[in-house]
């Protein structure tokens, strides 16, 4: 188990290193010099040069890359070109909205999908199953930001149960959670539809396995066999999807934040793009990638917890 975890950890580190290199290089080839952009068209060349030196833009590429990565390891993401504020501080503020939103949505998605998937699998081919399948077909087809607009229309404008947008902060956690509820539901439902389908089909696959027949021969009812032997085995593909979904939810949060005017990473990154604040773009993208890769690592560990074959055979 330890060897397995260590191996995954090495892969995690390598992926991060590679991703940081890709991001850095991509941003490097971007046209436009941040210093001249910050100072405007009429800036004098020597002022631009001075600013370039101040921002460290005149150093060789390799050096700048190492400085960037070295800084990030210590929690220093550099200084925003536009706001002249530490990026880490800006990101820290925004992530307090985006991360809870993604986790909230993931929780909702799992809470909806597991019972729905098991319900449908247990009733394969009957009306309940057909109903769940039809609902998931629709759920997959709905763009989450449009769904968000419909939610606003119904719950904020017509029923006035929730506010249509904005975020009051975490001073009152309940109010904060309430403000994130519509966005989380909008994010979660399409993902829940996908997860339900995966849960259902993976359970149905398992139900054809020989060991389910063995369990039935022991005297387990169909339902007991499904719960005691099906669910845990079906978790393996489901975990993969949950891991993937987290990255979609984080990215999806960027869009949903636009619908609800939430001050999250999404708002930050779009502002930064329009202002060519590349260091912010770079850092936020790196942070998102870090989150995705870390979740993949956790998914790998979860596999090993579910499947003993992984613990010993590698």
């Amino acid at each position, binding site marked *: 188990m330890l060897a397995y975890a260590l191996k995954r950890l090495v892969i995690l580190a*390598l*992926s991060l290193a*590679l*991703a940081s290199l*890709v*991001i850095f290089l*991509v*941003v490097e*080839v*971007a*046209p436009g010099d941040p210093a001249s952009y910050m100072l405007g068209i009429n800036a004098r060349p020597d002022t631009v040069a001075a600013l370039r030196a101040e921002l460290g833009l005149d150093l060789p590429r390799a050096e700048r890359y190492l400085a960037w990565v070295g800084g990030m390891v210590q929690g220093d993401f550099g200084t925003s070109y536009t706001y002249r504020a530490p990026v880490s501080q800006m990101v820290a503020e925004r992530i307090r909205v985006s991360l809870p939103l993604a986790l909230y949505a993931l929780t909702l998605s799992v809470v909806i999908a597991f019972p729905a998937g098991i319900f449908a699998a247990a009733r394969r081919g009957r009306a309940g199953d057909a109903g769940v399948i039809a609902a998931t*077909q*629709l759920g*997959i*087809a*709905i*763009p*989450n*930001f*449009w769904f968000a*607009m*419909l939610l*606003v*229309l119904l719950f904020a*404008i017509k029923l006035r149960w929730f506010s249509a947008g904005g975020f009051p902060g975490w001073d009152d956690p309940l109010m904060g959670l309430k403000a994130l509820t519509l966005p989380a539901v909008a994010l979660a439902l399409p993902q829940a539809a*996908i997860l339900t*389908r*995966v849960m259902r089909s993976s359970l149905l696959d398992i139900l054809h396995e020989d060991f389910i027949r063995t369990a039935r021969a022991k005297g387990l009812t169909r339902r007991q066999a499904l719960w005691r032997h099906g669910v845990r085995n079906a978790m393996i593909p489901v975990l993969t*999807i949950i891991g*993937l*979904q987290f*990255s*979609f939810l*984080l*990215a*999806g949060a*960027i*869009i949903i934040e*636009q*619908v609800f005017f939430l001050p999250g990473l*999404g708002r930050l*990154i*779009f502002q930064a*793009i329009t202002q060519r604040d*590349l260091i912010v*773009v770079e850092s936020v*993208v790196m942070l*998102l*990638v870090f989150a*995705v*890769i870390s979740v*993949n690592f956790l998914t790998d560990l979860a596999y090993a917890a579910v499947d003993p074959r992984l613990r010993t055979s590698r």
Partner: protein
Amino acid sequence: MTRNLVLGGALTALFLAAALLSYVWTPYDTEAMQIANRLQTPSAAHWFGTDHFGRDILSMIMVGARTSIAVALVAVGIGMGAGVPLGLAAAARHGGWLDEAIMRMNDLVFAFPSLVIAILITAILGPGATNAIIAIGIFNIPVFARLSRGAALSLWKREFILAARVAGKTAPRISAEHILPNIANLLIVQGTIQFSLGILAEAGLSYVGLGAQPPIPSWGRMLADAQTMVALAPHVAIMPGLAIVLMVLGLNLLGDGLRDRLDPRLRVVRA
């Protein structure tokens, strides 16, 4: 179930036809603004109503379908064109350095959600439909690479592949002659699903302003424009959204129907 196939095929054909028709005819000119006619609810003259500039929403949706379909289709083409050969090559050299390298590259791309790729590309090249295509296309590559590698790996263990090796055929030739035809069904079904995901992704990107730029109409931007008026004129937001839902639903039903028709045991990935 043939019902899926028929319904999905019909919906898909409807949108394809609307997109094609829009090249020669739309009910109204999508570039002409008639402020006097703004925000009209659906009527006999404007079936889907008009937007805040008085443009006919049905006409906008027809032209918008062009953008959506073109972006998604080309992105699927990029994904298949690059992903399938990579996946087949990885499977043919299973366990070797090439396999390892391709799979690591896949993991790396998977670590960047498509929206993040789009953001990066937009940050560099500026927004536009082409960049949306690249972003969605890049993300499709690992999907097809992984899928075809997995399917090819199980075929490589089959005895008919061994027989072809005994007949002295090389790995590229076996991949083309024996593996590809046997995973074609899977690729078609997955392609349909990626097509539908591409429609959704394009809508999302143009909604946040990273997709097709004005004056090219796109469903995502129609929704973005409608957002501020959702309380005043819900139909402006509802109609383009319904178009997306029906198009995606149609493609998904078509994919499911094709799978049931071609081979019910096919394993597609949906993410």
